[in-house]
């Protein structure tokens, strides 16, 4: 379970997150939508402590952290409970696909080599890239790289996988294979928070859609409500714009 209470993030005088309260159940698939620059990515990055939140408390699993008092150890354990999938894949350029997935098991979880690589191979097979085990990121397509990125997040065995616009950098031809893998994970009830502009994914896969604007949660609910019966004028406006170019 994930619980955010009054989470806020300021960059200097700019308020990017303005008191986010959010509870996500284990196995829930949450899709976050909203205009650009409204703090969607920042929210995910704060949960993974890639950004230091300004105030609030976060609970992930059995760990609760007051972000103002977060020690180095708190930050490390919070990161280890939350896995991140980056928009630009961010695979380790000096490591093969297999090593990218095994890295966390080896270094962070101190698994023995054999066991870590065996697990990494299982994940590679699961994401359909078994034959790419020894390929380096530079020689893989964007779609393959992002699937490895997801595989790396899966290896973490994290409470939640945070997806930060996972298909936004992809050529259109690779989007489906990445979304397909995410749907597969969703069907296994992996807890996920997904920031995306893929509205059809949100409609088909999400248990809950959250609309964020101006650093606040404006409206949330099951996709049927948010997409077909939005209440807030800002949600209506946003959906009208985005559905015009990105129909569900």
């Amino acid at each position, binding site marked *: 379970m994930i619980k955010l209470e009054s989470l806020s993030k300021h960059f200097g005088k700019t308020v990017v997150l303005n008191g986010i309260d959010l509870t996500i159940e284990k196995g829930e698939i949450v899709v976050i939508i909203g205009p650009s620059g409204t703090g969607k990515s920042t929210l995910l990055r704060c949960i993974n402590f890639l950004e230091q939140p300004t105030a609030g408390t976060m609970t992930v699993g059995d760990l609760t952290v007051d972000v103002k008092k977060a020690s180095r150890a708190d930050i490390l354990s919070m*990161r280890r409970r939350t896995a991140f999938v*980056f928009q630009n894949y961010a695979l380790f350029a000096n490591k*093969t696909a297999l090593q990218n997935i095994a890295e*966390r098991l080896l270094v*962070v979880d101190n698994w023995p080599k054999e066991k870590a690589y065996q697990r990494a191979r299982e994940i590679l097979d699961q994401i359909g890239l078994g034959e790419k085990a020894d390929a*380096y990121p*530079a020689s893989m397509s964007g779609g393959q790289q992002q699937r490895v990125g997801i595989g*790396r997040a899966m290896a973490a065995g994290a409470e939640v996988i945070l997806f930060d616009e996972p298909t936004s950098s992809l050529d259109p031809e690779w989007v489906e294979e990445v979304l397909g893998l995410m749907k597969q994970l969703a069907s296994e009830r992996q807890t996920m928070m997904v920031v995306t502009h893929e509205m059809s994914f949100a409609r088909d896969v999400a248990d809950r859609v959250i609309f964020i604007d101006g650093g606040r949660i404006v409206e949330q609910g099951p996709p049927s409500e948010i997409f077909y019966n939005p209440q807030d004028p800002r949600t209506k406006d946003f959906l009208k714009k985005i559905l015009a170019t990105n129909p569900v």
Partner: protein
Amino acid sequence: MDVLNVEYMLGLVPVLLRYLPLTLQLAGIGMVLALILACLFAVVRVLRIPVLNQLTIVFISFFRGTPLLVQLFLFYYGLPQLVSALTVIDGITATIMGLTMHFSAYMAESIRAAIVGVDRSQTEAALSIGMTNGQMMRRIVLPQATRVALPTLMNYFIDMIKATSLAFTLGVTELMGATQKEAAGSFLYFEAFIVAAIIYWIVVELLSKLQHYLEIRLNKAYSR
């Protein structure tokens, strides 16, 4: 002018080659120590570790800002005068100390630049999976920075091999010192020094080949 005494030159080759191992040892040990020191300096600079960062800046500034020969004399003649226990420093030790510190100052800056040049997404990904800063540096950043820094570092190594010749001013009989002695005995200065020059040249050429090979190896991961 007499013609070159080729016979003397050929005879000199095996004599001088006996001193090549010492030259290579000076450079080899100096390079390893300088690399370690330079990596530490670079990490201190990149992570801006308080106090150490300022000390490192001064250290680098001093050893880049003064001639190597002056530094060698400082270590060999100067330090024992200040601290009598340091009279145990012989020419070889002083040379290694000087080469290490002098070149670590230069190398620290190129390693730092290479580290800073590693894409931010790489460090974020490392942190996101829960690595500590140290793990991130060792496993992700430094290996990638190595590839970028390698050509410059090899240049410094080549430079260092040639700089070992300054050791003869501290009475160390390495390749240059030996040549000097041979030449002083035979008065065939041109012959002696051209043989020494050619030996240095061949060593450096071999290293360039090694550099080329290493670059191909390190680039393997980055080619399509």
